[in-house]
């Protein structure tokens, strides 16, 4: 426990919770002025078509309409977080300052216009008056079709298979020669929708300093600002991004939604002499249709081992369905690539991973960022190997797991602090106690069983990188002000300035606690100013399980600088710091050799479930979710992340079934796309939290918010096999899929 009241290790109550329980917290879309104008974003509704003509004159003339924006209004008509491959507005008559052809719609949610009107209804009504002629282009519905390259979705790339990574390690042929057993599987992984409760919304205006200002929800204020500035052709300091309270993100708000078009609307209104705010809020349907998903993927994997269980070789082919645009697919692919061989010592490997464009919803960031797909194949292969060898799955991991000093799959030594052995032991120990589990029939929210109820247990373990990978210039800035009288020995009050995005996870509370700890000032005397590019420095994104790790290190640096200023007599004493972690490397294009990450978190899960073989309904009775978090800055928030991630993964594994037909999402509602409700969740989630310091983490902390998600699906699949003897290589495990699987044997 900390010596500072409310410091690191305290389960303090988050400061923003009071406003959230009383209704006073202000989210984007709350407190919109009565005189605000309302925008409607017009989707193309065309998964692949070339625009021949666009007529917005009737919309412009419609009642209440102030402005209709089209492609011709966008100074630089392109954007994209890690690859600029998408027009801001699909259309005709652009400025020719973008490399991306703007006349082709590649996605049903490409925008073709933004209508600004006095009321939301008038904007929507005017949008229906827009006339477009389209020339239909052929769809590329599947990864298989995309690979054929007979239709190119981005002809400028020359192929749909636009991004590829390789690993060639050791001698794979020799690895197969020394294998006594080989397991092989092809895994089909589904899309997943983020389904944050707060849909996309934004307000934009010109602030008193003349900056184009957007208030919205996102994950990285400064990245939003950079992309807005690029598209509007403005210097970055002429753009301001503010995050209000946010109703969830999970990676789904990492890319642009309304940011650029709303900034464009405010900028255009200024030129018209109109100083009213403009506001837009998507409907749930617009949100589900209009933002990226967890990637659909096909993974073929082959694993060889000796009869004693020692891995001799791994081969894998990973295909990620990037959909219509890259979003962060190239980076997600990297992470799937690194995790598809598992957290094990693998002497010989050949791994080829590719992202392909299709006429589907874009894939992008979502909690785990490629880790869940890679780990599903890796862990299911390990569980199949254990079954083949008739070996305890935990013991099989112990034989092969990464340890301190192990060489990773990219042929370099893992960053120090590999605690997988301790994590696996702690999970196994906890899972073997506290039996028996509640009986299936006692779960009253399920129907009475119609067939034999079978029980099973599954296990999975893994790792996830912390922070941005592959040579990205990682950084995080913090600013700390120490207040007090000139002759005070110690400051009495602290202000911390930070951009870290509070998406719901509690990062602002963690930042306050770390500021208290770093300065020795009690938590109740720490005030925060957050997520406004006019006042707070670049923090990087709230993603990649990085924010606590990066923010903590930036706060330590800023506190040290402020402390120096304090000793020199400055009041308030101001410290600014830009933290940069050890550099990472791009992988060698042929061999995949390199050091892609600077830190990892380690996890293991054991799952008990019951399945009604008459209906195919699965009940997860107990989850033991084990994590080395290095140091729990706030143990209550850490457990909240574990429980939330487990249930999100539970939906991914059991019920969330996004249907994409001919390039269109067929079930864009929460009544047809089923996320878990309170009656659908695992009966018991036991969080086992280890605190084994990361050598580079602030106070030893590791990243942890994605890790409980990653191993869940393979552990459930293993438990279902344990119960029924059937391997399922596809999910979600809807009752009909389970029944069909049970009948097929």
């Amino acid at each position, binding site marked *: 426990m900390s010596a500072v009241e409310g410091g690191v290790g305290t389960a303090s109550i988050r400061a923003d919770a009071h406003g959230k329980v*009383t*209704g*006073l917290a202000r989210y984007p879309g709350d407190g919109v002025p*009565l005189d605000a104008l309302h925008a409607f974003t017009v989707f193309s509704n065309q998964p692949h078509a070339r625009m021949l003509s666009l007529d917005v004159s009737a919309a412009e003339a419609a009642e209440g309409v102030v402005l209709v924006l089209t492609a011709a209004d966008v100074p630089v008509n392109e954007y994209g977080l890690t690859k600029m491959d998408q027009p801001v507005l699909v259309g005709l008559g652009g400025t020719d300052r973008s490399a991306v052809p703007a006349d082709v719609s590649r996605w049903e949610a490409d925008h073709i216009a933004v209508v600004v009107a006095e009321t939301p209804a008038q904007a929507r009504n005017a949008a229906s008056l827009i006339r477009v002629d389209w020339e239909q282009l052929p769809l590329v519905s599947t990864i298989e079709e995309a690979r054929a390259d007979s239709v190119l979705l981005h002809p400028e790339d020359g192929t749909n298979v636009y991004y590829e990574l390789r690993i060639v390690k050791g001698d794979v042929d020799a690895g197969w020669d020394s294998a006594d057993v080989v397991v092989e599987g092809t895994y089909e992984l589904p899309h997943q929708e983020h*389904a944050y409760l707060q849909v996309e919304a934004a307000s934009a205006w010109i602030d008193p300093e003349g900056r184009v200002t957007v208030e919205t929800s996102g994950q990285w204020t400064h990245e939003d600002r950079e992309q807005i500035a690029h598209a509007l052709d403005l210097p970055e300091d002429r753009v301001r991004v503010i995050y209000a309270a946010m*109703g*969830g993100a999970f990676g789904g708000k990492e890319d642009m939604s309304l940011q650029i078009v709303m900034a464009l609307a405010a900028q255009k209104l200024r030129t018209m002499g109109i100083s009213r705010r403009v506001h837009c809020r998507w409907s749930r349907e617009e949100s589900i249709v209009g933002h990226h998903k967890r990637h659909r993927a096909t993974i073929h994997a082959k694993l060889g081992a000796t009869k004693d269980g020692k891995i001799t070789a791994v081969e894998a082919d990973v295909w990620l369905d990037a959909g219509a645009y890259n979003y962060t697919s190239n980076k997600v692919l990297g992470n799937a690539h690194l995790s598809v061989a598992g957290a094990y010592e693998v002497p010989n490997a050949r791994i080829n991973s590719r992202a392909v464009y299709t006429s589907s919803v874009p894939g992008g960031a979502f909690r785990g960022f490629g880790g869940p797909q890679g780990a599903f194949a890796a862990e299911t292969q390990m569980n199949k190997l254990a079954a083949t060898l008739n070996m305890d799955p935990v013991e099989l991991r112990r034989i092969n797991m990464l340890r301190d000093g192990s060489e990773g799959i990219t042929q370099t030594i893992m960053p120090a602090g590999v605690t997988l052995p301790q994590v696996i032991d702690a999970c196994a120990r906890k899972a073997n106690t506290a039996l028996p589990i509640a009986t299936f029939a006692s779960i*009253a929210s399920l129907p009475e069983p119609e067939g034999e109820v079978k029980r099973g247990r599954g296990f999975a373990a893994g790792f996830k990188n912390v922070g941005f990978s592959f040579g990205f210039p990682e950084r995080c800035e913090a600013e700390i002000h120490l207040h007090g009288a000139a002759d005070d020995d110690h400051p009495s009050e602290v202000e911390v300035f930070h951009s870290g995005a509070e998406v*719901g996870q509690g990062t602002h509370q963690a930042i306050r606690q770390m500021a208290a700890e770093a300065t020795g000032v009690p938590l109740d005397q720490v005030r925060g100013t957050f997520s406004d590019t006019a006042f707070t420095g670049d923090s990087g994104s709230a993603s990649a399980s990085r924010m606590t790790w990066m923010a903590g290190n930036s706060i330590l640096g800023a506190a040290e600088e402020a402390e120096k200023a304090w000793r020199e007599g400055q009041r308030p004493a101001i410290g600014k710091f830009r933290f940069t972690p050890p550099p990472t490397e791009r992988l060698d294009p042929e061999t995949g050799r390199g050091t892609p990450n600077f830190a990892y978190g380690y996890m293991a899960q054991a799952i008990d479930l019951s399945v009604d073989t008459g209906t195919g309904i699965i009940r997860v009775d107990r989850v033991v979710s084990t994590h080395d978090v290095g140091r729990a800055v706030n143990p209550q928030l850490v457990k909240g992340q574990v429980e939330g991630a487990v*249930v999100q993964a539970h939906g991914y594994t059991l019920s969330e079934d996004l249907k994409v037909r001919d390039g269109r999402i067929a079930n864009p509602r929460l009544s047809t796309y089923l996320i878990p409700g309170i009656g659908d969740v695992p009966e018991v989630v036991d969080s086992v939290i280890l605190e084994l310091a990361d050598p580079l983490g602030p106070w030893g902390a590791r990243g942890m918010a994605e890790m409980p998600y990653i191993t869940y699906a393979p552990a459930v699949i293993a438990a279902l096999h344990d119960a029924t003897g059937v391997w399922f290589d596809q999910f979600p495990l809807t009752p009909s899929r389970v029944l069909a699987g049970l009948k097929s044997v």
Partner: protein
Amino acid sequence: MTTYSTTLSVNGIPYSLAFDASRNLLSVIRNEVGLTGTKEGCDDCECGACMVLLDGHPVNSCSYLAAQATGKEITTVEGLSSGDELHPIQRQLLDAGGVQCGFCTPGMIMSTDALLRRTPEPTDEDIRIGLSGNLCRCTGYAKIMEAVKATAVELSGS
């Protein structure tokens, strides 16, 4: 467009309002009365973020005509606390850590209030049924469950 003039009582305060007769209660509470604690998450009775009480009964305000609320007492999340004094379910949610992004929280609170008035000593199953119309994507529900149970104990004194 038919303008409807009426008085709606929200959290004990009468508001004289004129709005289009087709408007739903959620939009009138948020935009005419100006109380934005009640959230819009789906527009169609799927998520429960817009839950309010009408004479103590939980209702998805997104799918209820505002005009129909005439003569009923409307309670929103802003009506539960008095001054600095939080309602027990609000305080228990803070203590249990049942609030993350907070967007589902107002609806959860209203459903819980209705549940505990109806069933002061609920079983786990009663709670699951009482909150089955409220989706949360952050917490996994465990700490919400814990907070509801603690509130029931506190309010029923058992």
